[in-house]
């Protein structure tokens, strides 16, 4: 550890990278938010599934109930106990968990955004460069990922473009969408901010978008965990706990 070269989140070093093994990759705000979110999002997904158990049909528009046409119908109490909080049917308890952890999600997202815009984590580490967004470069990255060829050396310290895009989608699209569509389902919030109903085109549409965005978050989590496993789970998880990441040697040197 004391041999380590200190780098910022972007992985820029002061040179002499490869003879030094460890790099400082994740700053404290990123790590704290990551783990709080890991717990919060899982609790939200599982308690959300229990809430959906109560009326497992989704509609488009302002209204939607049993006599109306759903675009998807999951049947009766479709989600199994291992996937829900609590594990046996209890709408009241699921709502308590969901609505309490929603505060953690909102507070965490706002705090992370303030800190990460302030310390330029977003601008420096998450914003794609013009070159990265060029179609040939993007296509190259997709192909390398599909072949499970992950970046090594200094490149492993920076977020690659697919990582950047997926994190940006989660932070700036999916999480805000979850929060806003969640609020649109509240009759009191609708009275206060009626523009929410117009923004999403009705409470039942907001409920459907809430479900779809949650599904997209679940997909993100699955792919994210898969990538951690494939890229070396010990090193990856250690870096998200301690901040320090062992720099993988370039292939031709390994």
């Amino acid at each position: 550890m004391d041999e380590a070269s200190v780098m910022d989140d972007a992985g820029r070093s002061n040179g002499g990278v490869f003879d030094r093994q460890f790099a400082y990759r994740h700053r404290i705000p990123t790590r704290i938010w990551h783990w709080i979110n890991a717990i919060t999002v899982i609790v939200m997904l599982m308690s959300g599934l229990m809430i959906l158990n109560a009326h497992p049909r989704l509609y488009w528009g302002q209204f939607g109930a049993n006599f109306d046409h759903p675009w998807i119908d999951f049947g009766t109490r479709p989600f199994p106990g291992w996937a829900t909080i609590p594990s046996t049917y209890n709408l009241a308890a699921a709502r308590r968990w969901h609505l309490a952890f929603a505060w953690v999600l909102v507070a965490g997202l706002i705090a992370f955004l303030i800190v990460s815009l302030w310390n330029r984590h977003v601008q420096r580490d998450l914003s794609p460069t013009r070159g990265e967004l060029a179609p040939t470069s993007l296509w190259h990255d997709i192909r390398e990922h599909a072949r499970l060829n992950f970046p090594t050396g200094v490149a492993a310290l920076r977020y690659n473009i697919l990582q950047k895009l997926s994190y940006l989608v989660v932070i700036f699209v999916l999480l805000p969408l979850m929060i806003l569509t969640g609020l649109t389902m509240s009759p009191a919030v609708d009275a206060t901010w009626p523009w929410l109903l117009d923004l999403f085109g009705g409470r039942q549409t907001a409920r459907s978008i809430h479900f779809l965005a949650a599904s997209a978050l679940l997909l993100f989590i699955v792919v994210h965990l898969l990538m951690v496993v494939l890229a070396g789970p010990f090193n990856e998880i250690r870096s998200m706990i301690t901040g320090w990441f062992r720099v993988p040697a370039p292939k031709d040197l390994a």
Partner: protein
Amino acid sequence: MIGRRRFMATGSAGLLVAGCDRLNNSRSFRGALRSAEKLTMDTQRLISSRDALAREYSEAELSPIFRSNGTRMPGGEEYARHLAEGFNNWRLAVDGLVARPLSIPIQTLRRLPHRTQITRHDCVEGWSAIGKWHGVQLSRILDAAGLSTRAKYIVFHCADRFGDKPYYESIDLVDAFHPQTILAWGMNGHLLPVPNGAPLRLRVERQLGYKHAKFIQRIQAVESLATVFGGKGGYWEDNVDYEWYAGI
């Protein structure tokens, strides 16, 4: 390999669920979750103006069939007799912390100036239905009875029972004096049908469906909910732990 991974995945999900269930059974953890309910209510009240109106819809947006929920036909001889009499002898009692306790015949209620509103009914389960309601503003009744300054909550006593327990609900004065809070006697241009709460039900448009008490016989002004039935302010609150504040 897949078998083992699957076993491990199911095993860890199982541990997680077991852990959450244990937390859910812990009184102090539920207390912590419950404090978020107060935070939610206080925040919603803070950002919202007292008289912010729930959206009112057009005739074209009415649900083709308005789903009823909860009790669709109250049991008991008394309700059956009222139904047979076309609710002609139904009266609404207003008592508790009021200067002038009232007993108002349903016909009188129907003749009072009324409000018609097309609003969305949101069930705690997740579904919504849009209906047109006709009724007298609750504030008008409370003003007529002369609400005491000690009164903090309005309790609605209903004719329906769940098992051996009477249905009741309660709201605070912010919602009680809201312009869209009405005692509805009509729906979609007709007198209220039985499944929707005949002959009188509450509409409290900024809260979820279980707050909208049906088959109302008596409204009572109280200082505290602690002494009313189970003490949590409503049938569902007492019996399955629903939140008393149902604005979300």
